[in-house]
């Protein structure tokens, strides 16, 4: 993470803050919206938020670093969120993670450019595990070949 000394306002972040009337209790919503648009939360965006909401940068950083959802770096093109909770463990998610790690050559929760694997704890699909969340779509009874299909299908859709 780098700290920049310039104070150029982040236009999109400013727009979102204004839409939320600069209310600090809506900070989580603001962060979600910016991350949805940009993929991650940049220094410039956080600086703009702290100014608009009249919070210290430490306070904003405290919130961002507390929640697993918020990312400070650019994410992989395909983020596969795999449920690691007990119900999915009972139907073999640990084996699925091992297979996916070796197929894509990345480690769980450890980055990746094209594909990254991220642990998530419970997707509420506990009777149809292992469960995976990908592009905000939920998948059940997932196998490695299904993960491969999801990524392939996504590529085709984007290529059109």
């Amino acid at each position, binding site marked *: 993470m780098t700290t920049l000394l310039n104070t150029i306002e982040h236009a999109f972040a400013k727009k979102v803050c204004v839409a939320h009337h600069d209310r600090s209790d809506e900070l989580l919503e603001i962060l*979600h919206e910016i991350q949805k648009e940009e993929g991650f939360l940049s220094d410039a965006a956080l600086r703009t938020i702290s100014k608009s909401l009249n919070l210290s940068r430490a306070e904003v950083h405290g919130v961002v670093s507390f929640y697993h959802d918020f990312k400070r770096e650019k994410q992989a093109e395909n983020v596969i969120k795999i449920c690691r909770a007990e119900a999915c463990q*009972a139907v073999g998610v640990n084996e699925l993670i091992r297979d996916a790690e070796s197929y894509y050559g990345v480690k769980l929760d450890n980055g990746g450019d094209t594909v990254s694997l991220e642990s998530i704890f419970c997707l509420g699909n506990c009777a149809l595990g292992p*469960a995976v969340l990908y592009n905000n779509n*939920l998948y059940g009874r997932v196998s490695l070949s299904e993960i491969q299909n999801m990524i392939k299908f996504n590529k085709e859709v984007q290529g059109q």
Partner: protein
Amino acid sequence: MIVNVYVPCDAAALSVGADNVANTILKQSNGKVNIIRNGSRGMLWLEPLVEVETLKGRVAYGPVGVDDVKSLFDSNFLEGGDHSLCHGLTEEIPFFANQERLTFARVGKINPLDLNDYEANGGLLGLKNALSMKPSQIVDIIKDSGLRGRGGAGFPTGIKWETACAQPDGQKYICANADEGDSGTFADRMLMEGDPFSLIEGMIIGARAIGADKGYIYVRSEYPHAIRTLKSAIIIMEESGWLGEGINDTETNFKLSVRIGAGAYICGEESSMLESLEGKRGQVKVKPPIPAVSGMFGKPTIVNNVLTLGSVPFILAHGAKSYANFGEGRSKGTQPFQLAGDIKRGGLVEKAFGVSMEELINVYGGGTKSGRPIKAVQAGGPLGGYITPESFNVTMGYETLAKAKTMLGHGGLVVFNDTTNMLSLARYAMEFCEIESCGKCTPCRIGSVRGKETLDKIASGKNIEENIQILDDLCDLMEEASLCAMGGLTPMPVRTAMQLFPDEFTNPLIER
């Protein structure tokens, strides 16, 4: 003639391809079909479950894949024709027929976003009654019903409402806790996606009871479908005058908003949730003051679980007694139990308290999906204890399960087969606490890390006896000195695993 065909839009059904099935049926129907997207009936092993409306009732087909659609048309399924995937009338399937559905009465039956459908199936009746009552009368009915918090703590809902009602007039809030993070639970999600109006109705009734005019539903970000459904449901209720100023031409005002979490399990703890709702770090706060006295922004606030609030409309519609007649001992009413993990018929079973674990796991659930023997069941989410088949005669209730060294929690049951390694599950419990601890109190923040490390030492066979003693001391400390249930209950799965399967901890290196 155009036939009504139901294909669920519940996230679990979508996760196994319900959208593609719905589209394929529509394409092949030559305009003879009207597709209705309902919630899930809770028979998740049959998803996608397609239902066809016939003169005799709704006929069920499942699990339907895209490739099955042609043969369904060939078998004349639009008139309820026989097929290898046909299960007869949905409501006569034993799993469904023997349930006692009060909170989930409409889930799977109706289009979740059709307010007329909701009203035609008993919706809004409770709210209409409540609008003609004094707030104290509503509180009394909830107290008499014996309804207790369905989030896990089991605190009497009526007492909570009474406390908030007794606070001086002024700004008050009501919050629905939809941060359903426990593994093995999905009832909140199913209710929000399958019958969102019932949650909203329960919240309006609660708001009137305590004098709140603002409310929030705090939904976890892992539930994108539920978030979408709730936001649409709120708009529909606003447009038809059931939310906003002067509800149904009375002086009751209520503004409701959805707030989205950001992937923190701890935000299911009420004080942490209230911090998060204020846009802060979700750190647990010391009680007292309790939220009913000083909650969101320091104002009186009631925080109730989705299932608690979802039970309120029934109670107001049919009276306290008709609810309290269900149940056993101090656990009144019904509980939506959720069967998960390695289970043949996974899904949601709403039954009165007092049903045995044996019946839920083996009769409703049908044992394991893998066909292997059951080794253990974890009740009550990641902080609940393990229980073995020898103890399955325990009845489901707050007190009975606590006595059996586990807990009701949010009503989830996760089944593990005989290949499960209990030591690695115990380690996972500590690891989960490490990842999800809010970090405020030391026993939870540091204890979980030390617990994980100690279990790693045991697993590698280092000074086993000594390390088991250290782990035991650590569990004592976490139980007694943690600020909230996260650190306080993490030892429960660890300890029960050690007590039930001591060999796996004392002889971890033996191949099993």
